[in-house]
């Protein structure tokens, strides 16, 4: 199989996946911040009732202050992401209101950077969360950062959310995510040591389509890369070799 070496991000996502508790999630969020070389990285869960929890690298004083001031109600990032599913550059949000301007000033005073990128997340029963990367730099540098790291940030966001859903106290058991027969075929052939080109050829599909099967299977299995997807599929008895 294509056992290309794991990237540093893969390792961090794997660590997140195995995090036994919120403290471990917190530790990984700090390492991820260092990985992206940014000022802050935050996962922020907002329940339907308005309860909040999360982890990340904002100053605890700011987090306390945010809760105390009930900033949830005026934070343009929350307002701008709540009914959306595309990632949002803070620059595109409406910061023009008086309350929003005061909020921003306060945030900057508490050590936040002027740039932000947030990925909205939705889980079962209207669950809502945000994954945010925050930094201090000029607009050009920020654009380059986003273009370089967009997909990695989206993947991180989903790993944080999957983990947080797992920690939810009265969570219904996750619906089993069935692999499609094509995904099973693809993982089986990879497990047998076929290269991607051979697998695609054997299944009479393009390598491009194969990539999609692998991508989807990987997400369903909560695997950070193909190698892990194959080993999880084997250990869960989803494929037999």
């Amino acid at each position, binding site marked *: 199989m294509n056992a290309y070496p794991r990237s540093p991000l893969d390792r961090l996502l794997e660590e997140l996946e195995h995090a036994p508790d919120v403290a471990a999630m917190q530790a990984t969020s700090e390492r991820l911040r260092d990985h992206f070389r940014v000022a802050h990285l935050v996962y922020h869960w907002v329940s339907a009732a308005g309860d909040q929890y999360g982890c990340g690298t904002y100053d605890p004083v700011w987090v306390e202050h945010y809760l105390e001031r009930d900033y949830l109600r005026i934070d343009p990032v929350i307002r701008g992401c709540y009914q959306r599913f595309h990632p949002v550059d803070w620059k595109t949000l409406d910061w023009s209101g008086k309350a929003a301007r005061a909020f921003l000033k306060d945030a900057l005073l508490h050590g936040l950077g002027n740039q932000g990128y947030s990925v909205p997340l939705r889980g079962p029963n209207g669950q809502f969360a945000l994954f945010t990367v925050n930094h201090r730099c000029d607009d050009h540098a920020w654009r380059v950062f986003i273009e370089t790291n967009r997909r990695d940030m989206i993947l991180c966001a989903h790993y944080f959310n999957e983990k947080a859903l797992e920690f939810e106290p009265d969570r219904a058991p996750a619906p089993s*995510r069935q692999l499609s027969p094509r995904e099973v075929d693809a993982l089986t052939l990879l497990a047998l040591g076929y290269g991607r080109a051979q697998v695609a050829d054997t299944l009479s599909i393009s390598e491009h389509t194969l990539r999609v099967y692998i991508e989807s299977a990987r997400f369903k299995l909560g695997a950070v890369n193909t190698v892990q997807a194959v080993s999880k599929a084997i250990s869960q008895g989803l494929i037999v070799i």
Partner: protein
Amino acid sequence: MLRYLYADQLHIFPRLAESMFRDRACQFKSRLGWDVTVNEHGLEKDAYDALNPLYVIWEAPDGRHRGSMRFLPTTGRTMINEHFTDLLGGGTVESPLIWECTRFCLAREAESRIAAALMLGGGEIMRHFGVAHFAGVFDARMIRIYRMIGAAPEILGRQGTGRAAISVGLWDFSETARKVVARRAGVSPALSEHWFHRSFGADLGHMRLSA
């Protein structure tokens, strides 16, 4: 021009929204004979329109719909995963990097370039929102249209034959495809980008994030 609107923003453009749902009734019910629900006002809406999807809509100078399509992330509820898994041989498509594209609709009076313009809009979504692929359900007739505008999907699964065939397909969007589609649409990539940013607010100038 292209507009990108979430369902909760459609009320800002009532004429555009209404003509879209009317054209959808015309295409899916009258012309294709799909088993869709048309309400007493002649509008075709389904359960997925209620999930606050994102629409890409071509608006004519008279403010009416000429073509549109609808997007939802595959990490949530989608038509493929709830109704068409048999086309995939069972199982589902789920990934934060794959969005579902459905209800690709062209108004009866739509010029041929509009299909390409919609594809161009789809390409903007991919580039700006980190989407790697679109997955969608479509019928045999659409395959010809997609091929014609230079954005043919890869077929993941198919059921039925001839005109009645329904397929699940997958798109990606290379920089080359973008140029081809832009040319067919008669829209410069710069204008397309401008429309995108206008919808998503990047050029509204209300950003005061300097420290």
